[in-house]
């Protein structure tokens, strides 16, 4: 039994919940987890446990660590599927109104804590559907949408008010929420924004997508059901698809392309597998599904036909040189190794910048050089009074569990501030 709960960004009582599972009290285990983690069925599936709780597991020093993530997932699924989910108790109303911007993992965890503490919570979402990246980004095969919907239903039952189709900074500004709509505090969890491209020639050819666009079309707009759903997406069937990047989103995109019928689905990555930011488990799954890994390969240019459709990517082979500032061995080009990889579709998955809409309309919220919102990491407070922020808009592209941790830290600080 792992005696510690170190390594879990939301301080789950790991030893206690595993003990309950060992005793056969699966529902009790789920409730124990939920004292600290509001979305265990989601975290159990998508969080990088091997770098967090499982890394700290003492059993792992001599053997394989306890599979904490899978146990978490099991307990949460058992509770839901056996119909024994119990709504937590809500504290008496405080009369305070809080707006949460964004219904992704940061916003949902913040809303959950605040509603239980007795505050009135309204969550504003830009898209027509709730859930943020959990709905548009992470594919069904990794996180079933019904699980996200189940968690959302729970929050609705607790009294959280959800408003879709509302873009903070456009439909309503932060100042208007504070002044005109009388919100006492605001939590900004809008996630990352503008996808990065590589800045190489040919990126505007037909058939070149960002991972965000490809995944949004497939997951949120259900383009795999075209024409029953109106939104189309590039037809991968029998085609060669290359995903450029080595993170979890790249793995999601390439596995999605393969499942949509791609003949060859490649990961093209400029470093070696050891440097890949994706979870080992995701890389493993991708390989099992027949994804072809083209490592140490750097794209130089996309090439198209007369109609401007993509036909290939000119790439350069690399080898590993000396470690760079990040400690990772830097890839250096192998001379005269250029070749053309024939592909019909390219998906760029090298990360995201920040969405500028809130910064543009709320100049008194301090931002970093990368346009991420600057916060006090102990409270997630921004430079603007009563405005807090967390998740990818603060950290840049990170994980679901880190975003949830930020949402909870902010909820605690907001509660203390408003009830002081």
């Amino acid at each position, binding site marked *: 039994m792992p005696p510690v709960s170190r390594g879990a960004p939301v301080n789950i009582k790991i030893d206690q919940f595993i003990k309950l599972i060992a005793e056969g009290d699966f529902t009790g285990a789920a409730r124990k987890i939920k004292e600290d983690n509001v979305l265990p069925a989601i975290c159990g599936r998508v969080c990088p446990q091997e770098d967090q709780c499982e890394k700290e597991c003492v059993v792992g020093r001599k053997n394989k660590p306890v599979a904490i993530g899978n146990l978490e997932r099991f307990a949460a699924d058992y509770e839901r599927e056996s119909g024994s989910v119990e709504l937590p108790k809500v504290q008496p109303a405080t009369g305070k109104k809080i707006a949460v911007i964004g219904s992704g993992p940061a916003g949902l965890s913040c809303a959950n804590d605040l509603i239980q503490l007795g505050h009135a919570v309204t969550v504003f979402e*830009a898209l*027509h559907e709730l859930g943020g990246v959990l709905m548009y980004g992470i594919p069904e095969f990794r996180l079933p949408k019904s699980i996200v919907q189940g968690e959302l239903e729970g929050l609705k039952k607790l009294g959280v008010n959800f408003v879709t189709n509302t873009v903070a900074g*456009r439909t309503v500004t932060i100042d208007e929420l504070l002044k005109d709509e009388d919100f006492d505090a605001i939590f900004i969890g809008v996630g990352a924004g503008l996808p990065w491209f590589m800045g190489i020639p040919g990126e505007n050819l037909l058939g070149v997508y960002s991972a965000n666009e490809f995944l949004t079309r497939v997951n949120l*707009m259900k383009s795999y059901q075209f024409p029953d759903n109106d939104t189309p997406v590039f037809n991968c069937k029998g085609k060669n698809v290359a995903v450029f990047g080595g993170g979890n989103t790249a793995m999601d995109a390439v596995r999605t392309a393969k499942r949509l019928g791609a003949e060859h689905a490649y990961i093209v990555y400029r470093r070696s597998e050891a440097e890949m930011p994706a979870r080992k488990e995701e890389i493993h799954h991708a390989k099992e599904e027949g994804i072809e890994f083209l490592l140490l390969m750097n794209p130089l240019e996309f090439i198209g036909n007369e109609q401007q459709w993509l036909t290939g990517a000119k790439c350069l082979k690399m080898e590993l040189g000396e470690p760079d500032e990040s400690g990772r061995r830097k890839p250096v080009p192998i001379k005269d190794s250029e070749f053309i990889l024939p592909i019909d579709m390219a998906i760029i998955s090298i990360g995201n910048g920040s969405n500028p809409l809130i910064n543009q309309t709320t100049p008194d919220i301090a931002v970093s050089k990368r346009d991420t919102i600057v916060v006090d990491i102990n409270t997630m407070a921004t430079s603007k009074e009563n405005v807090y922020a967390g998740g990818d808009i603060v950290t840049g592209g990170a994980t679901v569990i880190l975003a949830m941790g930020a949402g909870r830290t902010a909820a605690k600080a907001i509660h203390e501030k408003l009830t002081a």
Partner: protein
Amino acid sequence: MYTIISSVFLAENIKKIEIEAPRIAKKRKAGQFVMIRVGQTGERVPLTIAGSDPEKGTITIIVQGMGKSTRELNSKEAGDTISDIVGPLGTPSHIEKFGTAVSIGGGVGTAIAYPTAVALKEGGNYVITINGARSKDLVILEEEMKAVSDEAYITTDDGSYGFHGFVTQKLQQLIDSGKKIDYVLAIGPIPMMRAIAEVTRPYNIKTMVSLNPIMVDGTGMCGGCRVTIGNEIKFACVDGPEFDAHLVDFKNLTDRNKLYLPEEKQSAETFAHQCNLNKLG
């Protein structure tokens, strides 16, 4: 769900639709757009806002039935609902006192040229409008354009009304007549906007166009609407939709808008077929 307050045809296949959307009505500025999803299986379609009534809490859009989504939207009547509308999106038109400003609308593009003409007038400019259509029965917003203009011109391709010719020819005529023009805004089909850019380029007249690339979210998340401006990639949904016409890579925009032609055709044909079946039933 969002309720349609009124829905009337302005010309064949072009409808003016007023929708209840109080927050958007309060905030929208000239040049901004909304994303609309007609039904639960619908796609997200960007449509520029033609006007709004903040008191009443409504916005107006003017829609030409082209593909499935716009035709489905145009089949809606007052009292019907649509699933989703979000906005106002995009950067508003840049308005200042330029001097003499020409607002040019081609076809349904007039629906967007009109609110910007209003904003230019309010900004203290001498406003000239050129309202172009293929023929007389396709001319829209004639009275509205006239009311806001210091000079208003209508052009028709077939000469059935107003000036016989294209909006570009009318603009060239104005320039040739020695009129000093300080600013041009052109909104319409891509070939028209591209041609206007070539008319004003030799005279260095500041010219803006409103681009209509394919979008998904419209909020700066997917990058599908990227356009080439100068040598830079810009996102039309947050950086635009208005850009300097002399820097726009119109060929790239034209090519990228062809991405889903077979799918769009398939959807439109299925929709037309279903409409005919309904009529028979």
